[in-house]
């Protein structure tokens, strides 16, 4: 300690404190934007992240091929069967679409929703602690991404919401992060609630649909979509399926545990919804 004091070690602590305050204050004033230091460091380390992610994906693929060959064969056979079923469903849905189009024309309905504007991005990093669930993507404000943009998979399944934007990267809170909160709707009954992340459920990879109306009748397997209420997030994005309905600790309110459709562990490429039309 004498050596520490003799060598003015206290100044190191003062510098550390000042840096902490600087980062803290700049984070607070930047809102959802990354502070300049973080932005600089992450921009510099982005090629490293991209490289490591690419190498990691490659070795993951090789190890899957080597160690899970039998399982993959079974998966291929299952997928072929599923493909046949999907082909049938596509034929049926095409008929339904044609019928739907006809009905729209008959009723002179106008299209109330235009296509989303997407920005594709790679997942370059994942949350590195057990207290949050976040992903880092390879695109940022230079690509028009903003805080609050929803992120989906190629099949339109909700992954999360952008929380911090740097110039060439962005971070998103996934659907199971405790900070997540958005309107949800059960497609079967049209019952609405609030989708929110829950710390204990996050450890199991799930989230909850809270503030359910008393009359809402939910069953396991019900599909949950975003409701779009409040016009902050787009409606109709697939979130997941109801696993069960429970009472909270007070016993007064019910909530549903929702298993997300997205598999966060295997995500490689996602799509950020930069613009959407509000459904009236």
């Amino acid at each position, binding site marked *: 300690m004498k050596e*520490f004091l003799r060598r003015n*070690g206290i100044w190191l*602590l003062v510098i*550390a404190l000042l840096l*902490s305050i600087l*980062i803290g204050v700049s984070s607070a004033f930047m809102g959802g934007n990354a502070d300049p230091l973080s932005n600089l460091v*992450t921009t510099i380390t982005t090629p490293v992240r991209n490289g490591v992610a690419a190498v990691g994906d490659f070795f993951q693929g090789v190890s899957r091929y080597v160690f899970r060959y039998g399982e993959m064969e079974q998966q291929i056979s299952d997928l072929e069967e599923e493909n046949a079923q999907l082909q049938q469903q596509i034929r049926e849905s095409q008929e339904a679409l044609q019928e739907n189009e006809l009905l729209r024309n008959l009723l002179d309905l106008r299209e109330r929703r235009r296509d989303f504007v997407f920005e594709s991005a790679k997942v370059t990093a994942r*949350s590195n602690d057990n*207290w949050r669930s976040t992903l880092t993507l390879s695109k940022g404000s230079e690509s028009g991404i903003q805080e609050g943009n929803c992120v989906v998979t190629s099949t339109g399944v909700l992954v999360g919401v952008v929380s911090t934007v740097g110039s060439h990267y962005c971070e998103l809170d996934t659907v199971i992060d405790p900070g997540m909160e958005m309107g949800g709707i059960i497609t079967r009954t049209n019952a609405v609630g609030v989708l929110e992340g829950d710390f204990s459920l996050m450890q199991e990879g799930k989230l909850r649909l809270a503030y359910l109306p008393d009359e809402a009748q939910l069953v396991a397997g019900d599909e949950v979509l975003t409701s779009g209420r409040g016009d902050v997030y787009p409606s109709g994005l697939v979130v997941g399926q109801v696993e069960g309905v429970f009472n909270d600790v007070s016993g007064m309110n019910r909530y549903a545990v929702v298993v997300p459709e997205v598999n966060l562990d295997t995500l490689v490429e996602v799509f950020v919804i930069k613009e959407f039309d509000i459904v009236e």
Partner: protein
Amino acid sequence: MTTRDQVHKWFFYALGLIPIWVLDAFVLNRIAPFGVIPMLLPLAVAAVAVLEGAYAGTGFGLAVGLLWELSYAGGFGGLVFGMALAGMAVGAASQYVLSQNFFSCLLCSAVVLGALDGLRVLRALFIRLDTLDVLLRVAVPEVLLSLCWTPLVYLIFRFIFRRVGGTRLA
């Protein structure tokens, strides 16, 4: 030691930090052994502080805190001061109370990790994130599984210390 020696020495410590950071940031969060993502950066601070003492431990803690804050999501700045303080405390403890060996490093790592997760639990309780038992079910395995990595981290930095650490280059 000359300035050149100092630069040489800390260059090697920085090199030693790279594989630990890569493991922490890109590998272990994908694998998550036993479903828990370990924290390796506090172990690096504890190892260097045990080997190099309070002054160097503070500086290394400051650098690791900056790396942690700026390259990972969701930081608020406190880790820079926290890691510098941890480096100072561990360095002082190893100089005056404990000794420069693996068991001191293990003990100090446990204290640093415990303090970090203790603060996280307190914050989570304050914002009513969840109940104490749920938070402890995350914090305790996180600390214990992180400690399992102490031998590897300590070996890396002891290897560097034996070649360029202390005043060996002088």
